[in-house]
């Protein structure tokens, strides 16, 4: 019983890791670059939503406020690619790593300047409520997190599998030159993917904020999400999500049953174990990367 309780809470927090990991994978698939500001985009998304929704700020209704926040962060993601990342095209990969780490700092201090560095709580319509099924207590925020993640994953799957833009993005990720000559505007698609990644991060941020207080440093969760993406194979959307859920479940279970400290290390222990035994990740799609 206790274990089931831990697992449910773990799946819910794992969904949040998974969504941030999805953000990593989206950008990696489209542009072959890693955005180390992904966690900070989640943080900023949460704060933008808070700024629109909370009664002492924008005081919008919850759902329209979150949708508006996601749209704004979509614009921020698009703009980051269009105005900043595109400037370093053709530079070594490492330039993007440094650029996005720096970008993370910028976002963190921008959020701190606007909303302060002390913890704030996002006002949600389902805060503190829970239901009880057969002796297991499920918080509404956990349930919302799991349902929203499932829906969003389904939506992304349909988007990439069936829409013109989604297919163009897949084409561009496989071969940019070929994508150009069949008429895919590769640069614009990349910017759109950054925008989409901003939207997904915002939803992750709102779900994170629904479970507790947020401050500008919560973006460091991005490191765990990065581990989740690596575990999943980094090129795989379902892999990222499942990697996140795996970490999310192992953490509380390890905290309960194993000696202190193991829990905090567990995401990285799993990542190392996966890298040693299955270097391409658990759900690798790209088996051999072209040089």
């Amino acid at each position, binding site marked *: 019983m206790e274990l089931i309780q831990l697992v449910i809470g773990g799946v819910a927090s794992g969904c949040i890791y998974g969504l941030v990991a999805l953000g990593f994978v989206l950008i990696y698939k489209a542009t072959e670059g890693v955005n180390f500001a992904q966690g900070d985009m989640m943080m900023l998304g949460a704060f933008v939503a808070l700024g629109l929704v909370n009664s002492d700020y924008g005081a919008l209704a919850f759902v329209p406020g979150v949708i508006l926040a996601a749209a704004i962060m979509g614009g921020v993601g698009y703009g980051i690619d269009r105005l900043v990342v595109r400037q370093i095209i053709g530079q070594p990969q490492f330039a993007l790593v440094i650029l996005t780490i720096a970008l993370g700092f910028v976002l963190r201090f921008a959020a701190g300047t606007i909303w302060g560095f002390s913890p704030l709580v996002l006002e949600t319509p389902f805060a503190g409520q829970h239901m009880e099924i057969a002796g297991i207590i499920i918080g509404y925020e956990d349930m919302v997190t799991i349902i929203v993640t499932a829906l969003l994953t389904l939506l992304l799957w349909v988007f990439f599998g069936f829409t013109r833009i989604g297919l163009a993005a897949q084409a561009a990720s496989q071969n940019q030159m070929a994508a*150009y000559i069949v008429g895919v505007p590769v640069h614009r698609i990349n910017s759109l993917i950054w925008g989409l990644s901003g939207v997904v991060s915002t939803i992750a941020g709102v779900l994170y904020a629904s479970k507790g207080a947020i401050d500008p440093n919560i973006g460091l969760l991005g490191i765990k999400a990065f581990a989740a993406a690596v575990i999943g194979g980094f090129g795989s959307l379902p892999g990222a999500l499942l990697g996140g859920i795996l970490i999310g479940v192992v953490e509380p279970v390890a905290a309960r049953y194993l000696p202190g400290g193991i829990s905090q290390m567990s995401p990285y222990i799993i990542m190392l174990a996966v890298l040693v035994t299955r270097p391409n990740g658990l759900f690798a799609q790209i088996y051999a990367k072209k040089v």
Partner: protein
Amino acid sequence: MSLLEVEDLAIHFGGVKAVDGVSFAVEAGEVFSIIGPNGAGKSTIFNLISRLYKPTRGKIMFDGRDITPLQAHEIAPLGLARTFQNIELFDHSTVLDNLLMGRHTHRSTNWVQDMLFVPAVRRAERAHRRKVEDVIEFLELEAYRDKLIAGLPYGVRKVVEIGRALAVGPKLILLDEPASGLSVEESQEVAYWIEDMRRDMGLTVLMVEHDMSLVTQVSDRVLAVANGQPLAQGSPAEVQSDPRVMAAYLGTEVYT
């Protein structure tokens, strides 16, 4: 008016004049070949036409329109498709998906319609699929329809690339060394296909090729280039017997 007009085209990479003052015109319905020794700038001319490179000088007119200021992704919708010498396919997709990607510019439904799979999307999807099936039949790719590119032999990949270019529904198709690396039988097949493209599909073909027997067999006119500069232009026989062309290929000096 010619379908494709290239006027005084030049591109310089630093001090290297990869293409320097090349002009030619391709008439609608003809097969026009560009030949020349390695490094003559043939593929560079193709990359300039498909706007992957930005010319240092000169102008490219296609179908009465100046395409020099356009970007690479704006070329395909005009009806100009191409293949690459080193094959640029979507390696982790099937043959069918690669060909369907060629239809990209013909899709007009938006993403909401696409996600809901509304009747208009279904109709369009069927039309694209029919078009692609025509291409598969024409190039005899039936056996490979659902195979991943990554596992296919070189010769088949070359054909798939031609197929993708045809799926674009072009007026002009640029073939960059379609016969390189192919066996004699395979390049003979390419020759037939080029004939059919012109005769049955009404396509105009611009080709870069080293295989002189293929060039002679299918070309109406030939342009020879060397060191980025035009040497001679005319019928295949005329160009082959031109002393400057022979000198460029054989490396002998011609004293006049």
